[in-house]
């Protein structure tokens, strides 16, 4: 009985609490005032428009491994692998069809290189669906995004320009296979 009364009282108090819901995109302070633009706080891990980021060394992070594409529940990512003359993999094209994307963030979770990241930008509406097809040039930014330090190529053993065998993290120099020492 008491607890019910307490609940009723709490509900009553909420009548005077400030709104969590933000009037978006604009709000009037008073009924006579002009509407002003409102941008609610969005956490860095908010799942909005997708970007492709770069390594700390400024090169493309994406290695065209296709994991984001296969994990995508609506299959809206398509890409093709190619490589530079030193064997570094990167996507020849990378396409996201945002008119299909459900912003689930699975691609970001699957990505082994932190290349693909969701950002707090949700304002990507278009009148024409065709404009929701983003190619690599629309996705790739000049920065590292949320994970400033990670560099996949310094962890993985494959050679790229500027990193030979034995120079990745935790690697010893290449073996001399002709050595007969035990």
């Amino acid at each position, binding site marked *: 009985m008491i607890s019910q009364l307490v609940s009723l009282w709490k509900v009553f108090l909420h009548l005077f609490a400030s709104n969590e819901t933000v009037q978006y995109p604009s709000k009037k302070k008073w009924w006579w005032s002009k509407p002003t633009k409102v941008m609610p706080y969005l956490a860095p891990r908010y799942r909005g428009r997708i970007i492709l980021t770069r390594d700390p060394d400024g090169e493309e992070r994406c290695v065209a491994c296709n994991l984001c594409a296969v994990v995508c529940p609506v299959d809206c990512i398509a890409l093709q692998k190619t490589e530079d003359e030193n064997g570094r993999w990167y996507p020849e094209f990378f396409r996201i069809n945002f008119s299909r994307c459900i912003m689930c963030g699975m691609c970001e979770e699957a990505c082994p290189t932190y290349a693909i990241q969701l950002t707090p930008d949700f304002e990507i509406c278009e009148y024409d669906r065709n404009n929701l097809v983003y190619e690599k040039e629309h996705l790739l930014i000049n920065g590292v995004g949320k994970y400033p330090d990670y560099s996949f190529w310094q962890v993985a053993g494959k050679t790229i320009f500027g990193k030979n065998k034995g120079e990745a993290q935790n690697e010893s120099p290449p073996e001399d*296979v002709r050595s007969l020492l035990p």
Partner: protein
Amino acid sequence: MATIVVDGVEFEVDEGQNLLHACLSQGLELPYFCWHPSLGSVGACRQCAVIQYADADDTRGRLTMACMTPAKDGTRISIQTETAKQFRASVIEWLMENHPHDCPVCEEGGECHLQDMTVMTGHTQRRYRGRKRTFENQYLGPFLNHEMNRCITCYRCVRFYNDYAGGTDLQVFGSRDRMYFGRTTDGVLENEFSGNLIEVCPTGVFTDKPFSESYTRKWDLSSAPSICAGCAVGCNTFVSERYGRLKRVHNRYHGELNGYFLCDRGRFGAGFVNSTDRIEHVGERVEDDFFDVLDVEVGIAKLAEMIRQGDVVGIGSPRASLETNVALKTLVGEAQFCTGMSSAEESLVDLIIQTQRATSADIPSLSDVESADAVLILGEDVLNTAPRVALALRQTVRNRALNLAGEAGIPQWQDAGVSSHAQGRLNPLFIASVLPSGIDDIAADLLHDVPLNLADCGFAIAACIGEATGSEPDFVRKAAAALRSAQNPLIVSGTSTRTRAIVEAAGAVVAALESAGKVPRLLLVAPEANSFGSGLIGGGLDMNTALQRVASGSTKTLIVAENDIFRRAERERVEQALCTVENLVVLDSLDTPTASLAGLVFPAATFAESTGTFVNYETRAQRFYCVFEPRHEIAPSWRWLAQAATDAGRDDLGWTHVDDVLEAVAASPNMAGVRAVAPDAGYLGSSLCKTPRETPRFSGRTAMNANVNIHEPKTSVDEETPLSFSMEGLNRDQPSALLPFVWAPGWNSNQSVFKFQQEVGGAAAGGDPGVRLLASGSIGTMPARSASVRSDRGGVDTGFRLIPVQAIFGSDELSSRSPPVVERSSAAFMIFSPMDAERLGATQGMGVSCSVLGATFAVTVDAAMKSGYVGVSVGFTGAEGELPDGLIGLAVDPNYRPTPNPHDRVIARG
């Protein structure tokens, strides 16, 4: 049969197997690496550990390697017990200590046996904090990538490459945890079967280089069952595509034919499908080498008009499907149809068919070849003309070890035991050939001579099998004795020297063995994927008569289907014919010299874009399925012909589907069996859907075409085949001819093939595909020895006699237009005897020009070549067609500069 108990459940298994083999055959999941059904067990990886119990009361048991333990009656083991599981998990953990962790940039990723086994054993967290040992990689040529850090030292690569395929340039180096699998120095892996390392290696050490260039994960490939178009063996393949581009060719297991392995011509020779030389539109020639694109309707109307006017000669092709050949034959009528083989080739293929019919000797499948115990190769260079046969012959010879092991009670899968017991003893293989070949190392005896002498040798062997006079040469006597004393003697020969007498001699040896009470087998090789199909269809005109008839001006229209006539007869003859005829219509996939002379060209689909049937050397009809829909106006040749004929008012070519054409094929003589090769387009699997070409994890469907059209197109419905262009449906329980890829839950790699076999390493589930069209068995008479005209040998002053020499990379028309094969093949060459070379003043590396052939050839000197004769690389520039008879003058070409060998370049390590 033995009863074994696994985790308390009884299973009936084959006693001759090891426990791993038996468990996998029963559908149990047991991880493994080093064991391979074709390579046996060596116990190198320790991954297949199980606990074996002495009896029902034993609760502790002991750890054993399943692959090294026979499946004896009453064996009790546990796969699931905690100790066994823990042991297997730690094995993986050890193997992964030095692993480079680069799955995202590894071509094996997504179809990696190491990934699968890691997941299966449950090793998920890396605990080892030490440094990883690393290796430098090597440049291995245009076919393979090398990434040694991924190796888990299972030894499969060297066991396949050296023991199974007879390679010599891949070794294992180093000691302890520094084992290195590679060559002594960077360079091209030379063995003709090197591509199989891609599938044999359970990790990403050896990966497919051309595939990697435009790489796609296995889950994103859409694939179809296909037949290799590289030679008359007809190996079964999976062909895969994405974004309308052919990506790769993989082995499709066939228990009787290719088993687990393909040759490199087949695996890397399909790149011509993506060629920029593809004909994509209907074209009309306006001036030399310049074509106007025509509307499809206009093109068909023009062809229809020509058909209506009559006087049409049709030339088919041994590289085109049965369907296309029968369509053209129906259109022009038997009397005006030429199979498209050169006259010499056709008469040989006819001879082969006549011989195979007349003898009661069976045509062996490749698994039959492997079970032979004495072999005579007469005049055929199988390693270069039917490569997979050579690999099978290597096993024939090695299988002596299996027989000896069987007598000594050593299990057949005990690889080390079997080979050390045999002490190098081999089944006898006798090779009588023009030149040394890559399988000479396993021959009991060799004879190198010119073709007619080889034929004589064959007849002498036949005589000696009947009755030895004692005065025979050594080779003849030994070969005859070996064949006589064998249980399953095998004779191999073929058309590559273009010598009738050689095939006749092979027939004579078989006949002699038969009359000596033996049950011999006879394998006769023809040059192309559908040579036997063309031979069985037959035509009223042979190539020379057809060309003569056309050149005489009595023919209004010549229709050539998927054939480059310049490869089928001497140049002048062809030019004369093609330039005389009023209308030359060519249907082809690639731009060829013939196509560039055509008045009207139609773009023909390749094997990857169309569905059809090839007949292999066993006369086994096999269906290949279109992998992707052809781009632009490309269509199967039979469709162009049928449409034009229908437009012209013909009612006997009213075909709309490939199944309709197949009915027409089946109605022709010898061809009744083709209907049974595979189900028709209406076939639905157990899911009541067509069989999907795409894997269940195919990605990117809503983005692939979004740049062109934001509205996803409706999946195109495949009305031609029982396969669909989607991921809908089940890849399960369908006839084996319809298997588009192998994949099973938990088994993403090609090791999952055992889920599609009746038992591991046995026949494909549902039976091995294909139907043999010819039953051998005493139909007609054995062709008698024809009187062969002996001609004198040539010389430097009189000119030389030319002998055709085949090369695995370069002699075949289509594969030699695939970029990696081009990179691997040499320039056109001529082989001289040392004496002739000296007299001519030529040394290795110089060039000789031949005015008759109008080309220059690189000089090779070979001591086995007979003086007065010259071996010429056929199929190469300058020697595309039949070689001229007679004495041909040659001279050193002072201006010749050898084309730099691309393999001399050593790529920077890394």
